[in-house]
């Protein structure tokens, strides 16, 4: 029975309940106490020892119902009743045939689950494996013998033998059908969410510009989770950083006024630094996707980031912090793109003019503590890049990070002016997948 519990734990984990080894041990002990006799009791015992939040309990209960289902081999109404003369015609040496003929449900289920155990059905991962597993299960249960028997009966060719063969064929179809259902059920239990997980890890690596619209909701989900993790991680560390060790130099300095008696100790403190961020985004078509996800990320980090000011540009540059502050990133971006209520010209991208605008109007937003994030491909339509505008910004800020959604091979090719801007950036990074964004944000809030 231990094996059953193990499989159940695997199924529950696939369904998204976090179960540790010690909890599995507890569950085993709990099950030993309550026994397998009472279904409701068993369910409660497992829920109490395995699931540790209200949501997990719901998932676990659902999983329990699907795992311990015995809805197989329910009576097939179209099959005729038992005939007395059947056993005479065929040698009932096979258990399978006997069980099928006598409609021994418990026996059939037991044989099937035993076969499944021997075939390690909990290892099923892909939906293409379903037929394979069904075949193997049937083999284990001795369906091969059944085929042989049917053929033998057909060869006899008497009316009685024909009906017997027909009945056996009916029984075989019934068996195959049930085994198929069972395998499907097991696949749902052990593998369905696995597929989701794989898709998610792939989505993290796929180019944002190639992403299909239908995955957006999923991506938002992933981002939310990443953001939560980052928030958790960082806020905890900050608390620990508050404790310090004796700062001897400062103690000496501070205590000079007490005639050098070491009277008031000073402790080393780590400065808690929440980054101030200025984001300058190119929102021409080529970059928009990346902008969207970057902003989603940044605005999720409200706990970590002190202040974000956002500027977008295409031909000219406009501040959109208030739009982003008041509505969700999605809505804000549609509003910005629609461009009805902001003076943004969506013509040819002009880096020279946009950085000039920034320098003229918003330079005060950049201080010694500010991190400037610029997101753009630096394709300036063969205009003069005027890097000195960027230089002024670079000299005022703490660091300037340029995120380029193009792969490095294309940097500097054609009308890309990224090489002209390179000297005035602290770092330049390629940024076109979720993974890139996450890494960047991680570096941003780490101090």
């Amino acid at each position, binding site marked *: 029975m231990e094996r059953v519990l193990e499989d159940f734990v695997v199924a529950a984990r696939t369904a998204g309940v976090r179960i540790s080894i010690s909890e599995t041990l*507890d569950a085993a002990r709990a099950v030993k106490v309550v026994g397998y006799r009472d279904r409701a009791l068993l369910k409660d015992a497992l829920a109490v020892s395995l699931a540790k939040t*209200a949501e997990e309990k719901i998932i676990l209960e659902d999983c329990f119902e699907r795992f311990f289902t015995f809805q197989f081999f329910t009576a097939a109404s179209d099959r005729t009743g038992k005939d007395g003369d059947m056993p005479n015609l065929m040698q009932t040496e096979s258990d399978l045939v006997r069980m099928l003929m006598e409609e021994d449900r418990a026996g059939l289920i037991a044989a099937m689950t035993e076969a499944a155990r021997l075939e390690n059905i909990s290892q099923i991962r892909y939906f293409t494996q379903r037929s394979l597993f069904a075949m193997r299960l049937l083999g284990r249960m001795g369906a091969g013998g059944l085929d042989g028997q049917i053929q033998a009966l057909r060869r006899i060719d008497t009316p009685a033998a024909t009906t017997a063969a027909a009945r056996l064929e009916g029984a075989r179809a019934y068996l195959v059908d049930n085994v198929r259902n069972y395998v499907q059920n097991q696949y749902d239990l052990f593998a369905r969410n696995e597929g989701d997980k794989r898709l998610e890890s792939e989505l993290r690596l796929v180019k944002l510009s190639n992403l299909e619209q239908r995955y957006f909701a999923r991506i938002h989900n992933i981002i939310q989770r990443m953001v939560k993790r980052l928030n958790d991680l960082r806020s905890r560390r900050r608390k620990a950083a508050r404790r310090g060790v004796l700062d001897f130099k400062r103690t000496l300095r501070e205590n000079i006024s007490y005639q050098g008696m070491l009277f008031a100790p000073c402790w080393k403190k780590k400065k808690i630094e929440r980054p101030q961020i200025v984001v300058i985004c190119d929102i021409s078509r080529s970059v928009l996707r990346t902008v969207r996800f970057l902003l989603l990320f940044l605005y999720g980090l409200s706990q970590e980031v002190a202040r974000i000011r956002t500027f977008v540009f295409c031909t000219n540059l406009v501040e959109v912090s208030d739009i982003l502050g008041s509505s969700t990133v999605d809505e804000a971006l549609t509003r910005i793109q629609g461009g009805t209520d902001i003076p943004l010209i969506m013509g040819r991208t002009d880096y020279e003019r946009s950085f000039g605008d920034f320098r003229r109007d918003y330079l005060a937003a950049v201080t010694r503590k500010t991190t400037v994030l610029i997101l753009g491909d630096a394709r300036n339509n063969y205009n003069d890049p005027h890097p000195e505008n960027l230089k002024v910004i670079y000299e005022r800020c703490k660091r300037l990070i340029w995120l380029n959604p193009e792969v490095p091979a294309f940097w500097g090719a054609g009308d890309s002016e990224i090489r002209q801007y390179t000297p005035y950036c602290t770092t330049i990074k390629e940024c076109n997948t979720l993974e890139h964004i996450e890494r960047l944000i991680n570096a941003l809030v780490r101090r």
Partner: protein
Amino acid sequence: MKSRYEEQFVSIDTVLENLRDVAYIANRQMAMTVYLACRLEKPILVEGPAGVGKTELAKATAACLQLPLIRLQCYEGLDESKALYEWKYGKQLLYTQLLKDKLDDIISRKNGFKSAMDKLHQYDDIFFSWPFLEPRPLLKALQEKDGSVLLIDEIDKSDDEFEAFLLEILSDFQVSVPEIGTVEAVTKPLVFLTSNNTRELSEALKRRCLHLYIPFPEAALEREIIRRRVPDISEHLAHQVVNFIQDVRKLDLKKVPSISETIDWARVLMILHAEILNPALVRDTLNIFIKFEDDVGVVAEKVHQLTAMAVK
């Protein structure tokens, strides 16, 4: 040796009955959790909305087992000196005074410094020893001879550090007092932790506990609770009260009424000698089970409709 808990709670049904005897109506899942906790010697982490009887469960269990209930109310800033033990500083000071007076006799001046020190060493352990220790709830629970029910209430209100500190007690039923050593439980206490989920508890803590989630009760169970807690109430009034409350819980409220509020309301209705529910009566007594001004507005609008449904 069988512990007191196992002797008393021989099966899940006995737990149910015993709890019923002390006027606590539990469902089967709750009874089973208590039973399992006794068998596996594991703490129970009870979660659920406010007022569904999380604390009551611990109290009722203690009453059934006739064991002392030791309660530790958690709050922000709770530390081990308040939860585990503290030294009796006053007594220690007195002791030093005493020692000072007797010192001359003890180390009898004539012998040299070395022998005086040797003599003194024989006494030093007394200073940090049991007589000077003031046990706080956790230590008290470990020292009870017949076992006890330890209730750590609203663990989510305490700090992360305190939660980490609890881990040793919860898994091994022992604590470390640096000056004395490790103190093990004489008899392992039955531990209840309650949480209102104001913050997520750590995985480590959850892992060590059986997790019981108490939701709002179903109508039948709630009726039984009302009948048990407010014995004078008539059958049909209890029915109506419970129906009404169950419907109110379906509304979109800031705080939905819990069982304790249902009981309060039933008691109030008894004092007012109400026979059946009517809209005017409900409107007058609304503030018993609705605790927010906005919610009162929402419910007051629908009083007629809700009462009609409850009385039906």
